[in-house]
């Protein structure tokens, strides 16, 4: 399941989507908005997105990971628009029979999302500069 939303992510729903009794392992990554970037205090953060292409890229990545890592379940979600400090901006969850694939797939997916998916972050710093 892939989701791109302009409101808080329903992470408990995503967790439930990973349910599969054949799976011994799940791996979850939560990317949250942190207080500092490049040594400066972040006042606000917002994500801009090329939605139709981002959905297409995320679907492709999910499909690739399902096959490469023999996953039973995979959920990718990204929040767009303004995201307050400490809240979840990206959520990745995978379930596999054994733990090795789950760890590897989760790492792969977050690295690829950050590299390939057309979503850009804009910080406003407390000093007032972009």
């Amino acid at each position: 399941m892939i989701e791109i939303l302009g409101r808080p992510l329903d992470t408990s729903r995503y967790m439930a989507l990973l349910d599969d009794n054949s799976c011994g392992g799940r791996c979850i990554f939560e990317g949250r908005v942190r207080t500092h970037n490049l040594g400066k205090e972040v006042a606000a953060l917002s994500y801009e997105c090329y939605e139709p292409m981002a959905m297409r890229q995320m679907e492709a990545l999910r499909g690739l990971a399902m096959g490469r890592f023999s996953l039973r379940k995979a959920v990718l979600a990204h929040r767009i628009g303004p995201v307050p400090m400490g809240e979840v901006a990206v959520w990745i969850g995978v379930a596999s029979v054994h733990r090795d694939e789950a760890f590897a797939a989760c790492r792969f997916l977050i690295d690829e999302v950050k590299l390939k998916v057309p979503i850009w972050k804009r910080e406003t710093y407390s000093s007032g500069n972009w």
Partner: protein
Amino acid sequence: MKIRVLYFANLRDLFGCSEEDISLQTGATLESLAQELSRRVPDLAGQIQSLAWGVNLELAPIGTALRDGDEVALLPPVSGGLA
């Protein structure tokens, strides 16, 4: 032919809009479009090498031929996210 061009991130500030229609000669490529946009906004020159290009929702190499009605997106680097 008419191409819809989409701008993201700092390119929206540079071009003063999020999207616009650009007229190009039949047979134009992404390279031709890049040259035309650099002509219009010389400040683009500094980052044009770092851009990825999307044509109709797929990444496309700079030599890609364009057709009337194509949607082209200029994609600045997306890394530097949540690590």
